């Protein structure tokens, strides 16, 4: 059996379909609990193999792993679901982060209050960018979004309110929620926070996918002209897709800034956009679980092999090339639909 033929996605889906409701609930709760205790795996006997040398394992779980997965899921709505190639996704991350940095250092608002503002501003910039540019297609859209990503970074470099090259320091951590403190020493709590946000985004995507927006995005991705002929308001749905993706990026930015406490323009380069996109392509474009796996692996691997120093980027590159050769559609590709299970509604037709 060839490596390209292994279809974990369908096997997983088949097992899932075979389960009844209580079994699914137990599985989901167990999975959430398992991921929830991951921060402690670094110190535990045999799982300590997961521990990352040099950088703190618990910090790595928040950034890059958690953030990459979160942003990967957000970008997947745009790239994977609606087929719009966005090469400037880092802009929304930056807008979220700078909103947090500026507002928290100049006003009395705390991170929880800034979170919706950051998401709102990212969404707004998504709409403003989308209105003129989403009439473009394919490569042209990619070029414009790439430009937007660079514009945001260069603006933050050159205006005083963002602190120029030095960025903004002394960003306060979020205030505690009950017993959960968010400080320098509370990486575990940050991880749980990001994990909760990831779960929320996964839930949201699942809801949207089976409803009208999901249908519209799918139609737009497969054939935009025909989608228009079917009466789908394509521009409206493309802007929705863009701004929902942007909101997720903005939320990631706010939390990121509140954790690292110092942000500067060089954290928001084109590289980040490409890395997030790689997570999607590597994991399997359009498939949420693929994106989660892709994000985890691509974020974790460079940290795990940090001890080989100079050869690190080389090994990372080789892994990417090999995997993309063996599995060109990604680790867990989107379902290729040959035969689709008849829906319950279709029985009496």
């Amino acid at each position, binding site marked *: 059996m060839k490596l390209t033929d292994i279809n974990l996605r369908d096997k997983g889906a088949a097992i899932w379909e075979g389960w009844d409701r209580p079994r699914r609930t137990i599985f989901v709760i167990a999975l959430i609990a398992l991921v929830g205790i991951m921060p402690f795996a670094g110190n535990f006997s045999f799982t300590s193999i997961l521990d990352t040398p040099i950088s703190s394992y618990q910090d790595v779980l928040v950034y890059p792993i958690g953030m990459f997965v979160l942003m990967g899921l957000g970008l997947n709505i745009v790239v994977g679901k609606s087929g719009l190639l966005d090469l400037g996704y880092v802009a929304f991350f930056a807008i979220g982060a700078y909103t947090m940095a500026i507002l928290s250092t100049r006003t009395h608002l705390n991170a929880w209050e800034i979170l919706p503002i950051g998401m709102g501003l990212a969404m707004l910039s998504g709409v403003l960018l989308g209105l003129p540019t989403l009439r473009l297609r394919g490569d042209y859209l990619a070029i414009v979004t790439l430009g937007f990503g660079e514009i945001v970074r260069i603006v933050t470099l050159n205006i005083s309110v963002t602190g120029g090259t030095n960025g903004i320091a002394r960003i306060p951590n979020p205030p505690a929620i009950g017993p959960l403190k968010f400080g320098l020493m509370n990486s575990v709590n940050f991880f749980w926070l990001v994990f909760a946000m990831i779960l929320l985004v996964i839930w949201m995507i699942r809801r949207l996918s089976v409803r009208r927006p999901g249908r519209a995005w799918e139609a737009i991705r497969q054939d935009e002209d025909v989608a*228009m002929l079917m*009466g789908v308001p*394509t521009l409206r749905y493309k802007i929705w897709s863009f701004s929902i993706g942007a909101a997720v990026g903005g939320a990631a930015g706010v939390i990121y800034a509140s954790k690292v406490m110092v942000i500067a323009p060089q954290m928001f380069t084109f590289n980040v956009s490409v890395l997030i996109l790689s997570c999607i392509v590597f994991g399997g474009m359009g498939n949420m679980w693929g994106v989660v796996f892709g994000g985890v692996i691509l974020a974790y691997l460079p940290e795990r092999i940090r001890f080989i120093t100079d050869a690190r980027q080389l090994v990372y590159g080789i892994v990417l090339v090999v995997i993309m050769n063996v599995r060109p559609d990604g680790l867990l590709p989107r379902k290729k639909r040959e035969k689709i299970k008849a829906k319950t509604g279709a029985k009496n037709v």
Partner: protein
Amino acid sequence: MRLEIKDLHVFYGKIEAIKGISVVVNQGEIVTLIGANGAGKTTTLKTISGLRPVSSGAILFDGQDISGMSAHQRVEIGISQVPEGRGIFPGMSVLENLEIGKYFRKDRKSEMQEDLEKVYSLFPRLKERTSQSGGTLSGGEQQMLAIGRALMSRPKVLLLDEPSMGLAPMMIQNIFNIITEINKSLGTTILLVEQNAQQALQRADRAYVLETGKVVKEAKASDLLNDPAVREAYLGTGAH
């Protein structure tokens, strides 16, 4: 319902593809546009359905100028197009393809079952394949699906772009029979673009002959069938 195109001009960049076409389609008619490659048939349809912008001229639907409307609004007021090359969503099942044809309808839930039945009775073949993905259907089945999908929006006028393209002769007969039936039994007005002039003229009430972006002839379809110039140019005389 009356669809009227008045002195329509359409540009692709600097190239003028449609140079002042005027076409009228009355309620209940089958009207066909025939012509060679590059005559502007497809562009005319795309402009009516809103995929191409109008450079000058007007498209009147029930007396209202719709040339500024977006494509999805035109579906709402009752214009539905079967695109060239069928345009099936390959990754969606037959049922999902049909469902998306009803995308904009406010009362789609209550209408859905009735309209599915209607499409299945026109195309029994589709009923056998509801759960199969659109991309794996044969050419003829895809054409049936494309027509069925366009009917889901309960159009007042159906625009058909080369429904016979790439189909076997038997299937072409079949598709044209169904087109005639849609016109007769559902009362849907039809604007048909065809390269297969013989079939199109036999089925249509009236016809327009397009040449390089202009209407060069307009007549009853049966008259054109016997017109020596048209026979020479589009039908073959049978003498060669």
